[in-house]
């Protein structure tokens, strides 16, 4: 399957530190997207990176994509308590239809003040 798997499953850091989350997937992709989910709430889109891109930035977020290793990382710099949430990668691609997003298992990030 094209499942995304994030690691670590849980990450606990102090405010001001950087947080890095990784995502691996199994088949060729078209796009990879990162989402944030606060407990019991909806999914907030963070960033989309296309398969022909290697790095993308948005504010304190930096996403990298290595298609040869079928992996992506999300870096949150200078973390804040408000960044506490679960973070998911989601992929779409030729094998599953471009519309269907396949989500990973998520990383639960806890940022302590």
């Amino acid at each position, binding site marked *: 399957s094209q499942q995304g798997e994030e690691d670590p499953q849980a990450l606990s850091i102090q405010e001001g530190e950087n947080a890095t989350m990784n995502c691996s997937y199994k088949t060729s992709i078209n796009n990879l997207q990162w989402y944030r989910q606060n407990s*019991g709430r*909806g999914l907030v*889109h963070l960033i989309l990176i296309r398969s022909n891109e290697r790095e993308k930035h948005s504010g304190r977020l930096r996403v990298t994509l290595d298609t040869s290793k079928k992996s992506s990382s999300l870096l949150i710099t200078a973390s804040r308590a408000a960044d506490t949430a679960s973070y998911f990668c989601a992929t779409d691609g030729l094998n599953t239809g*471009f*519309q*269907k*997003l396949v*989500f990973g*298992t998520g990383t639960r990030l806890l940022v302590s003040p």
Partner: protein
Amino acid sequence: EPEVTQTPSHQVTQMGQEVILRCVPISNHLYFYWYRQILGQKVEFLVSFYNNEISEKSEIFDDQFSVERPDGSNFTLKIRSTKLEDSAMYFCASSEAREAKQYFGPGTRLTVT
């Protein structure tokens, strides 16, 4: 920023009852989706909808499920005869184009008793 909205936020129903979950996608979007997330599990794709027809569906989306766009703004998911295992958070999403980022609504928590 435009948002996807969903109603109700929480629906409690008895096993065997029909439920309709409602969504208002972002107005200029053309692609619409339903996903679900069972408590503690991954977000799973159910169905995508474009040009007034289903364009893709998962194995979860059996004949107990149906989708409809009854007018120019609403997008609904109907479950004909709910089962206990249908209890989950149901997310609606929309996108401008086939390979564009998907914007998610806040979700409807469905509890089947």
